[in-house]
């Protein structure tokens, strides 16, 4: 790839992602997320078992698998919200605590009580709280960033709306804006497309495209197999153990899907073996 002489050059993450897609085996490029031997159990029930996963920088990755497969737990363990039994997690080559400023989290909508006295703008600005010190209140700069993020998800008109009065899709977009204000390198999203309306779906897809163009890494827990090939360039198939991970065209195969979903899956365009006599 050649650069024009006057071009100051793409951002470091874009260089990394370009290199990553050109040569994924290049050990000099640090993966955005590196998980080794991750095992998580809840009351003696394994939820994640010995998962090894490397997510290259610049990837937009979907994480799919049946219910209870550990997809949410994977994200929560990477973010330090859940204590694993074993395993190591690194983000951009470092332990999570050191790169907090470069990581943003979009949790499931159901994880908070929306009857909280706050406006859309207030909640969006909360994404900047990690950067403000103890006594500093969010000011004009934070407001401007928040309004910018709300604009990206099409929620500017509702900036002063009470969050308790929002629809599910609007709530999802607020969470998205709250993550965007952090201007992070790596984004983790937990089922952002679940039960959202069409404008929200478009807004999320727009954000994914924009993040991809900026060379950011996005990891999305996703529930809808039909849209995996459309939204993501990488995919991870998870069912307590890692079934497969890599680029969609290599990994998203009928065989891998059946391995992940335990055979209870109809893949369109595929003949299912019929029992004799039918």
């Amino acid at each position, binding site marked *: 790839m050649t650069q024009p002489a006057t071009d100051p050059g793409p951002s470091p993450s874009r260089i990394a992602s370009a290199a990553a897609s050109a040569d994924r085996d290049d050990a000099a490029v640090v993966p955005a997320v590196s998980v080794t031997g991750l095992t998580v159990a809840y009351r003696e029930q394994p939820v994640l078992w010995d998962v090894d996963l490397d997510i290259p920088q610049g990837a937009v990755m979907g994480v799919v698998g049946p219910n209870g497969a550990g997809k949410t737990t994977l994200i929560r363990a990477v973010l330090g919200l859940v204590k694993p039994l074993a395993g190591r997690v690194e983000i951009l080559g470092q332990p999570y605590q050191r790169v907090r400023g470069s*990581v943003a*989290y979009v949790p499931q909508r159901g994880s908070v*009580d929306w009857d*909280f*006295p*706050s406006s859309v703008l207030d909640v969006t600005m909360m994404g900047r709280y990690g950067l403000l010190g103890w006594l500093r209140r969010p000011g004009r700069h934070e407001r401007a960033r928040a309004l910018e993020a709300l604009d990206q998800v099409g929620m500017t008109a509702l900036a002063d709306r009470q969050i308790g009065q929002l629809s599910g899709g609007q709530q999802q977009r607020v969470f998205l804006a709250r993550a965007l204000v952090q201007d992070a390198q790596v984004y983790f999203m937990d089922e952002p497309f679940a039960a959202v309306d069409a404008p929200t779906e478009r807004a999320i897809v727009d954000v994914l495209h924009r993040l991809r163009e900026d060379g950011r890494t996005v990891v999305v827990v996703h529930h809808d197999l039909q849209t995996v090939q459309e939204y993501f360039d990488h995919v991870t198939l998870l069912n307590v153990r890692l079934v497969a991970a890599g680029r969609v065209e290599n990994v998203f195969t009928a065989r891998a899907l059946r391995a992940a979903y335990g055979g209870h899956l109809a893949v369109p365009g595929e003949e299912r073996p019929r029992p004799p006599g039918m």
Partner: protein
Amino acid sequence: MNLLVDPTFRVVALGTAAIGIVAGILGTFAMLRRQSLLGDAVSHAALPGIVGAFMLTSSKATIVLIMGAAVAGWLGALLVRGVVRSTRVKDDAALGVVLASFFGVGLVLLTFVQRWPEATQAGLNRFLFGQAATLLERDVWLIAGIGSAILLVVAVCWKEFALLTFDPDLARTLGLPVTRLDLLLTSLIVLAIVVGLQAVGVVLMSSALVAPAAAARQWTSSLGRMALLAGLFGGISGVAGAAVSAGVSRVPTGPAIVVCASSLVIVSLLFAPHRGIVWRIARRRAGMRRHALPV
């Protein structure tokens, strides 16, 4: 109203106002964190601490009793958390068990102490339902001092407490020291409860904590305004309760304050715009009339 010129009453009213303001503001967080019942457990658990502090030191000084209450209240809160975390017992059962058992021990200690020859112990009964009239000027200074310190910490940690209450997971991923903030906020709530026990009593303190916040929630959709309004409602209930108790003999201040606070809650539940019941019924009727539907 000759109450207002009575210097004793002014001291007492200042004390109950301070208690009400602090309880209202901290009650905002307790309510939004779904820790209202925890407030109840803490206040009931404080009783054996109060009586125990007296038995250990033979002192009825407010500061000593507050410290005893704080220690016992804190132990109760820790016990609830410990039980929930390490057994299959759920929140409400753990709260109920701790509340009842600590309170029971406290009552036993109280009746035991009644038998002591010193007549001085008779004053401890006031901690059941509160008697603000027993607040001395130095007690009020102590309450105001502790209250100001509590509010100062809340002001400094305002946005951290707000985020912790709304979305603790995000708070953790943003690097906030969530465990320590949680501990701090819980301690402030325990302290707000404990300074109010002399005026409101252990049995009813949780209402004084939560009712102003519940009323305030009806009127605003901003956390800051809710806290300020809750403080205002708490302060008003405190003064009004002290006035009622002073005017009507034999009424302990605890119930008087709580009746005032509860009246504010009822009015707020009914008449607040947008969230009030009357307002919502009126709006629905107007809507149905507009669309020519049978009302």
